[in-house]
């Protein structure tokens, strides 16, 4: 839109107030420009909460278009697949180790009597040992998931 066009458009142009960032300001300007008219009533513009902010602000239109294209969808699908594979691998790995604990305790003879500083091995393993394992799994996952996303962004932005 040229500067001339801008001048020609009055503040109360054909666009509805909802399309403008500040409907209240526009109404005030409108009233000042045309003192004979009664100022339009203030309208509260609301949206259902469930619709709010579904598009994160700052989401580039170009990227949205790229993602809807056929090639873009291939990238999205492969991102989803790699994230799911990662999550399943970490979860299954963690659960297998967790499952190994009771089996270890049940099958290795004498381990139920083994103790460190008077605390039996069972208690150490279940009461303390599991937590570093959880933390490690989580950290590995976050690192790899962020890498997957960075790789996806490289691909989409190259498009």
């Amino acid at each position, binding site marked *: 839109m040229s500067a001339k066009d801008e001048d020609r458009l009055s503040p109360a142009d054909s666009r509805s107030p909802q399309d403008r960032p500040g409907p209240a300001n526009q109404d005030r300007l409108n009233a000042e420009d045309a003192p004979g008219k009664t100022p339009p009533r203030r309208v509260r513009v609301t949206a*259902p*909460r*469930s619709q*709010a*902010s*579904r*598009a*994160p602000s*700052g*989401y*580039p239109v170009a*990227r949205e278009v790229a*993602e*809807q294209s056929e090639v873009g*969808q291939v990238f*999205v699908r492969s*991102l*989803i697949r790699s*994230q*799911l594979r990662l*999550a399943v691998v*970490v*979860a299954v790995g*963690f659960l297998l180790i*967790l499952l190994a604990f*009771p089996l270890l305790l*049940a099958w290795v003879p004498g381990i*139920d009597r083994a*103790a460190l500083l008077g*605390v*039996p091995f*069972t*208690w150490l393993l*279940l*009461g*303390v040992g*599991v*937590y*570093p394992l*959880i*933390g490690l*799994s*989580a*950290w590995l*996952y*976050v*690192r790899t*998931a*962020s*890498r997957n*996303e*960075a790789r*996806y*962004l490289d691909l*989409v*932005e190259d498009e």
Partner: protein
Amino acid sequence: MNAGVGYAALIGVFAVTAVIGFFGLRISRTTEDFYVASRTVRPWWNASAIGGEYLSAASFLGVAGLILISGSDALWFPIGYTAGYLMLLLFVAAPLRRSGAYTVPDFTEARLESVTARRVTSVLVVMVGWFYIVPQLHGAALTMSIATGLPSWVGAVAVAVVVCVTVVTGGMRSITFVQAFQFWLKLTAIALPIVFILIVMGNTGLSVPAVAEPFAADPVASPAGAYRNISLVIALLFGTLGLPHVLVRFYTNPDGPSARRTTLIVLGLLSVFYLFPTLYGVLGRAFTPDIATGGTPDALVLLLPGRLIPGLAGDVLTALVIAGAFAAFLSTTSGLVVSVAGVISQDVLGGRVRGFRLAAVFSTLVPLVVALLTESMQLAGSVGLVFAFTASTICPLLLLGIWWRGLTDAGAIAGMLAGAALCGGSILLGRALGPGAGPMADFLAQPAAWSVPAAFAVMIGVSLLTRNRRPAGITKIMTRLHAPERPQAAPTR
């Protein structure tokens, strides 16, 4: 126990909660402020708040009590509570934040484009919330009667009133600050006394002799015991990622990566916290096994410091533990009230701030009445049943909704209803039959091991049969859920 100490602790916690809630009130203005703290909460704050909300009566009192009575088997409870967050991180955290929905029903509607599916989810979320509030109020009743000698209903009513006032006046923003504060209060309250006791033990030896061997060998694990443990761990692992008050917290992260970072911090905080209930349980087994035989093992954390440390020091430590316990009831209950009220106000009352306030009052009153009418059972056990219920209903919905394009509204509804009926029905049946259930008792009392796979199977099966009902915008929705939002996201910060 000295009643003055109890009163001082209670008044202290209530006053601080009210003050922080009040200051939150001064900065919360819009509807977004009320529901999701305008999504401006930083990961550390948010993680502390999640920890504050999550560590309920079951964690603060129940775990130690359970270790006192059932020994190393009970160690699976804190493992499950913590590992549930790992599952949440792996499968739900970032996509859920990116969905942009405020509540689980919002997510359902956005993903399945179906209002009926939304309504079913709403009903389930409200049920889960109420089931979970009831044990909190039971815990409050127990703690109040131990701390002050007042009749136990006073505790439940006091917690309900304080929660109601905080939520109605401040909404989510002040709740975030209150929760974050309460996490650190809980951690201090449970850690300081036990550290003090250990130091005293190390230096001088205790005047109280150990009366039992704390690690006494447990009876050889029976198949039934193994089934119970496995079923419990499944319930806790998959129940956590369906808890509405935990999920609502993820909407307060600015974006997907920060949702992940928050969860990582939460895992660290929980891992540190759960070392302490275990210590209480072990010391309780050694020095005060009579608390278990006395019928209130859940009171172990409250009674242990006073029993082991005589005099003023013991009183101060007891006051601290009581304050921590009430922080646990308050924070979990208010988190649940916020999420239940969010759902009710939006689905029934039009989503305005006024409706939210009304709904908050209503959603505190219903569980209060239930809590006053029912008998308290083992805290950790009753919370475990709520986890089994969410694992059989909301968990399959979220997992399949996020990762599988094929989920349809019909499939989701059928799966959730099947899960709810199987899990709820089995718990009720087990309760009704009592000891008459015989060998089936464990399968009925801990249904998660079969009801969760059943719910998944129904959801997948019905979705496959109703392929034509897949939402039209599925491509766009899946992109929104999984595509990272920042063009140049730094890999890890």
